[in-house]
């Protein structure tokens, strides 16, 4: 079969208007199930193409930038699979959440109009229905474009192609925040766009520096030694900063808590579970593979930067009351883990870092679904107003607990498989290089896992355990659009935790080839 990856990437883009029209004409169910079916199809064909090993497609593009390729190798496939699996699952979860959110906005608008006009207007139920249909159609259309952008980035074989996809995924996210966000949503949407765009532009400068000097933008044609040393260093710095902003590493992380507070929960899940990881992918593809010499210079720096991020994010997460902000800082901390692993300069450490992305996605998406379920059922985001919900929402509680264990890195979840390989990689390099700094970083990294454990367990305790507040007496379990996807992901993380070869078989040989062991 041909055009598999082309289909997987562009079908969602081409058919996104259909999702909108279906929503507008027939309502949320049609639109959601259409998007679900579409993404499921794309995910399936992509996964089947992974079985035969490395898979690539090349198409002619412009003379100026080189060819347009889509590559699914040991590095890209875990990212691609997770991005689409998470997107597919999130479609279902989005449906009840977005209906509730849009209805709420409709009522708010109606109320404000009522106040303006003086309380005379009747609101017809049909206008609510139209409003919801219209909006949810737009939501799923944007959702599909975003999924396409993320997948395209990890499959790209060309710097310019990478950049284009990298920017494409920001646009739907921007609109999603601006349309369906909370509180200062427009301001935050701009803020989000500003930060990620600045990051992307810095990245682009790095790309241009490489591409123009190497004479080609194709990954395969770029050779490090063909580029002057001073330009190389600048390009590497550009790439590191650009991706650091994207991953919300320490110091340039500030956009993320704002965005997570304002964005609708499905977008949070998607962005934490998939979009941030694209930054991690960038480190592998752009820094380690394209500029291995520069990578070896910057590896220790990345290691320590990751350490600072994981510690800082964890400490900040400890003191949050808004549950979304807590997970925002938790995401920062988890991205720190990945950067920490990327800086390990060892095959197992890098494999662990990639596995960390897989595991973080599953875990964090589970936890964000929990947040969504709670926002839907309870209507509050303040942790102090929750408590004792385990008795009322048992399935959500169990799935959230599995997600929490994944984040904490407790076996038998995928988190442990990611963490042990990653930490071992860091230690291995420390021993090989006889580096005391790396040794200390390893120790502090382990301490950071305790911090992670503390904030996660404390959160779970305050949300699910203890005394049930009286006003939550009538809380019910979320419907199966929410719990179904949660159970699927929870099962997935346990399966990977026990049998990690599902991904390791792809990742480890690739990383070994990369580091040259």
């Amino acid at each position, binding site marked *: 079969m041909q055009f598999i990856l082309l289909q997987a990437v562009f079908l969602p883009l081409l058919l996104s208007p259909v999702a909108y029209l279906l929503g507008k004409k027939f309502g949320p169910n049609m639109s959601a199930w259409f998007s679900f079916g579409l993404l499921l199809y794309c995910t399936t064909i992509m996964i089947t193409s992974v079985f035969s090993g490395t898979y690539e497609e090349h198409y002619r593009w412009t003379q100026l930038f080189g060819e347009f390729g889509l590559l699914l190798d040991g590095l890209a496939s875990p990212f691609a699979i997770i991005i689409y699996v998470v997107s597919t699952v999130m479609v279902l979860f989005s449906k009840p959440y977005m209906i509730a959110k849009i209805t709420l906005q409709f009522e708010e608008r109606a109320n404000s109009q009522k106040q303006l006009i003086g309380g005379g207007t009747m609101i017809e139920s049909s206008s609510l229905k139209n409003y919801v249909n219209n909006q949810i159609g737009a939501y799923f259309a944007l959702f599909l474009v975003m999924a396409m952008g993320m997948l395209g980035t990890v499959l790209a074989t060309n710097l310019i192609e990478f950049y284009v996809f990298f920017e494409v995924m920001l646009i739907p996210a921007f609109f999603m925040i601006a349309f369906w966000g909370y509180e200062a949503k427009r301001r935050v949407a701009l*803020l989000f766009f500003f930060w990620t765009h600045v990051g992307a532009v810095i990245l682009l400068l790095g790309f241009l520096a490489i591409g123009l000097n190497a004479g080609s933008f194709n990954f395969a044609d770029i050779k490090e030694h063909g580029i002057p040393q001073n330009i190389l260093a600048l390009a590497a710095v550009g790439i590191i900063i650009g991706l650091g902003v994207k991953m919300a590493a320490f110091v340039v992380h500030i956009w993320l808590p704002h965005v997570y507070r304002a964005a609708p929960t499905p977008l949070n899940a998607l962005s934490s579970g998939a979009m941030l990881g694209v930054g991690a992918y960038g480190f592998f593809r752009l820094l380690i593979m394209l500029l291995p010499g520069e990578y070896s210079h910057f590896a220790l720096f990345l290691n320590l930067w990751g350490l600072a991020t994981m510690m800082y994010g964890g*400490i*900040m997460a400890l003191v949050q009351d808004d549950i979304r902000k807590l997970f925002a800082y938790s995401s920062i901390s988890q991205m720190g883990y990945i950067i920490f692993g990327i800086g390990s300069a060892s095959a197992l450490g890098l494999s662990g870092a990639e596995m960390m992305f897989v595991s973080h996605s599953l875990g964090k998406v589970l936890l964000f679904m929990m947040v969504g379920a709670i926002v839907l059922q309870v209507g509050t985001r303040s942790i102090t107003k929750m408590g004792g919900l385990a*008795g009322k929402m048992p399935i959500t509680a169990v799935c959230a607990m599995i997600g929490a264990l994944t984040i904490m890195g*407790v076996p038998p979840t995928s988190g442990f498989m990611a963490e042990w390989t990653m930490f071992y990689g860091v230690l291995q390099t420390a021993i090989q290089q006889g580096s005391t700094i790396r040794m200390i970083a390893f120790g502090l990294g382990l301490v950071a896992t305790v911090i992670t454990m503390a904030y996660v*367990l404390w959160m779970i*305790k305050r949300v699910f*355990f*203890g005394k049930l507040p009286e006003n939550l007496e009538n809380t019910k379990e979320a419907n199966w659009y929410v719990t179904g996807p949660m159970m699927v992901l929870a099962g997935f993380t346990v399966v990977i935790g026990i049998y990690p*070869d599902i991904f390791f078989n792809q990742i480890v040989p690739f990383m070994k080839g990369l580091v040259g062991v």
Partner: protein
Amino acid sequence: MAVGSFEFGLSANALNAWAVWILPFVAAVVIPGVAKFSKKATNGVAVAFALASAISATTLLPLALGNNEIHNQIPWISSIGLKAGVLADPLAALMSNVVAWVSFLIFVYSTGYMKGDKDITRFWFWMAFFVGSMQLIVLSDNFLQLFFGWEGVGLASYALVGFWYKDKKKDHVGIEGRRVLGLVDYYSPTHSGIKAFIMTKVGDIMMLAGMFLIFAFAGTFGFRELTENTAWATTMSAQHLLIPAAVLLFGGAIGKSAQFPLNEWLLEAMTGPTAVSALIHAATMVKAGVFLVARLAPLFFALAAIGINMDQFFEVVAWVGAITAFLLATQGMVHPEIKKVLAYSTGSQIGYMMMALGVAGLSRQFVDGYTAGFFHLISHAMFKASLFMAAGSLLHIVGSRFMTDMGGLRKYMKKTYAFMWAAGLGLMGAPFITTGFWSKDAIFAAVYESGNTWALPIFVLALITAVMTTFYTTRMIGMVFFGNKSKHVEEMEKEGYHIHEASPSMWIPYGILAVLTIGIGVVGLAFEHQIHDIFTEYLASAFGIKSDMANVAKESQSVLGGFLEGVNPVALVSSLSAFAIGFGLGYIFYIGRFVDSTKFVNSNIFFYAIHKFFLNRWYLNALIYWGFVVAPLYFARGVYRYFENIVIEGFNLVPEKTMAGGARIMQATQTGISQSYLYVFGAGILIVVLLLLI
């Protein structure tokens, strides 16, 4: 040489060894399904699986007796070249039997204890998971797989300690309103669950670091591989990394087994259902640490053969054990909650086991200390499980965790009273008839004979601990069963409730264990010799640790003949006198009640201060909270308020204000007045023309 049957690929001969740990996990998976049909049926399913696992474990016993082993591996993470496997050598075979049978009895007990609890499904899930994880630790053939079980027991303890997640008042531990150094000494179940999980995690990360260090040099996690090729040890020792790695691994055991300085979680773990406490203390969790040391100690000791001295490691083990034994025994003497007294005693007894294993590595006769430690593990499993279950019955009947709310119960609960005496005598080490006596005596002898420079101080600590152990056990029994009925009981009776014996499903399990404590105790010396023989052969064949036969011969000509042949006279006299002093004091205060203990403590500022010091847990708990909970939280809040919200947030404001300012300037130019546009237009043309001219 042992007839090692090593096979790769799942082998039919090894199925029983696999079944021991897989069956409980199967039970955990099946139980929620069964509960869909009938909640009551979960009891039967759980007990049946526990029995099946125990029977599988029993089929491993011939391995121990014949010094055989089953070693079977299957592929696991093939991309990194790691295999999963079971290793049922004599050590694992004995241990898995202790775990399986004690947990089976606890399961039976739980059917009575948890009767009518609506969360019974969750209870059984985690109980089965707990036992499965423990058996996984015991039967794993490599570190990584062991770590799965290791974290599994941590997870299960978290879930079970916080089982009553609604945090009702009656499920708390500690005295409400009591403060130590400004912090409340009163904990809810969910808080305690987190405390247990995080404190043991601190040990776990040390263990991970140790594991990784060894893996980095040896390239394998396998215990057998590490024994067979010891080149890794030579390299590590040359780089001075071997002792740190070994001590880091021991850190894991410190956490799990609640040894000093990570001991404080064990007390709060009493918020769980008593069946859980029994399981944690007798069969799983805290024994995991001892087992890990038992797994590793011969490996490290055998390195002496290639000229690597591991004394520092064994000194750490011995001292941590000795300090913990002493520290926790002092606190056990003063606490009013019955489960807490038992918890302190567990920590203290585990300290004994660690001490024995540590001393084993410091002495010429490794097998003596090794046997003593393991024998104590077995006898402790029996009497402590029995005591906990009996305490659970008391809690059930009286409805209070405080011993001051009991009193005078011996007339009403005759069976529990008798069994508690039997098991209690085991804990005290009552001479000649209890397992506890023989195992403790073996530890004393091992320490005394080790000939190490530290032997004397450790021996003295052990002896004082023994006195205290006997005292607090007597105190417990005295406070619960003797004297007059407490006000609490009288009030209950006024309300029409009458104190009665526990149901058979509850008293039979602890009865069996109590009887075994005495039954095996009567033939204790022979039992010990049997274990000694098994381990002598095992250590010689698997690790090449030869026993010093000349020494054994000399020993057998000891001063004591006949029944007590081979027993060290100094150890014997010491343990006899420790028992006599402790029991005597306990009798005076709590059974005979010749002196009122409260008045006695308050009579003298010195006694008062000591009492308060012990009751406040040597202030260790409070200091840990200040240092690792309160202070970091203050720090985090400070950083959030002053750094994140001001400095980092400032990065946002700069572009935001610049953009807004820029927009305002641009806005100002859009005046909408045609005249000003014309002027600017004209000026522009002028400039262009000028530029062209120049």
